[in-house]
């Protein structure tokens, strides 16, 4: 695929489909440790984003991501709105006016997204949050820096999978799950899971 603005828009449409397919799964994960709205909220945000992209695809990858960010921030509600919104916004800021995404830019954008999520949510690795998916995703992406955009994204998605798995054994220290403490051990963090799903969707779109 091309990694132009149109390619990024296509990746976001793919992500919207994946979120819709996994809506119930995310709701179930969140029912155990949160308020069961993660799947619902994300689905609402991505549906709105696709509707906006139907009327107009902005001219650069950065502008597409910025539009995605503002839609998510406004429509998702819950913690996922400001967190994913910040991730897309910070990634967008890294891309400048580049017309095409290449592997080094993509990795920088991923790093900016991780840093943004950490700053917004004040979470670190091991807190059982989406940060636990993003950290291994970034390091796997860095490991695949010599490959194509699709290969970098595929590596990131696999890294995120491992990270999401790791949250099963962690005691949550952020968000509503933290109120459960030890009782939340044995459950995957819904935010880490959705992060992995999004990266898989982007990788699929880039193939």
């Amino acid at each position: 695929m091309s990694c132009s603005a149109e390619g990024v828009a296509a990746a976001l449409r793919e992500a919207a489909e994946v979120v819709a397919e996994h809506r119930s799964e995310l709701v179930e994960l969140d029912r155990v440790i949160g308020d069961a709205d993660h799947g619902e909220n994300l689905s609402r945000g991505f549906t709105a984003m696709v509707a906006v992209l139907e009327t107009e695809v902005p001219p650069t990858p950065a502008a597409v991501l910025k539009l995605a960010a503002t839609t998510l921030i406004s429509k998702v509600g819950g913690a996922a709105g400001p967190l994913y919104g910040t991730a897309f916004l910070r990634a967008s800021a890294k891309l400048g006016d580049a017309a095409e995404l290449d592997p080094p830019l993509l990795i920088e954008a991923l790093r900016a997204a991780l840093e943004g999520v950490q700053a917004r949510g004040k979470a670190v690795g091991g807190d059982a949050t989406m940060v636990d998916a993003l950290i291994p995703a970034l390091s796997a992406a860095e490991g695949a820096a010599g490959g194509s955009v699709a290969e970098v994204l595929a590596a990131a998605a696999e890294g995120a999978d491992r990270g999401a798995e790791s949250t099963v054994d962690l005691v949550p220290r952020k968000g509503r799950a933290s109120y459960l403490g030890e009782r939340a051990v044995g459950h995957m963090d819904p935010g880490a899971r959705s992060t992995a799903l999004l990266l898989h969707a982007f990788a699929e779109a880039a193939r």
Partner: protein
Amino acid sequence: MTVGIVLVSHSAKLAEGLAELAGQMAPDVRIVPAGGLSDDGGLGTDYDEVVAATQRADSGDGVVLLYDLGSAQMTAELAVESLADPSAAVVADAPLVEGAVAAAVAAQSGANRKAVGEAAAGAGLAPDLAAVEASADDGGEEKAFTLTNDVGLHARPAAVLVRSLAGFEADVSVRLGAREADAHSVLALMSLGARQGDRIVVRACGPQAAEVLARVTELVGTNFGE
């Protein structure tokens, strides 16, 4: 002009009720509730609503935002970052109800944005009893009053008292029995629980101590305007 206040809550009712409560003690302060989702009125925090509320609350002296739980803080911080001038607003890490009341009274007294934010944040801390003990030896002037108004030193009269003292150069405390409270803090005054018929002792230290006692005499005599 005063510093504005925005109350970010998951619940529209919670934000509106608190705006009403805090507003009663700070009639000139813009206190704007931003609670719930504007689409369907459901529970949640609405970024666009918080941005709009922050703009409405700002009369030129800036805004302090308070929040309830979890994502409300993130939404508030994101909204501040998105302002044309992010330095015009600050998100206070404070208990929502006590913080809103303390911030409102501080803003009504003409405090700047930093001081209003600190008043909110300080509302979560235990009263500093040591400071009051120490000031007991400083001398100053004392006068005893019997409260005749209906609600005693409850929220509104306490706020009236704090506001009245804002312009004076004096440290003022109020004693009820063995307990003493800083008269510049609404929450400390309310924690005394002074009721109608109770006898309080007001002590003022500083160059304007006499003026302070005259002002308090007038307030008690007119039942705090009730």
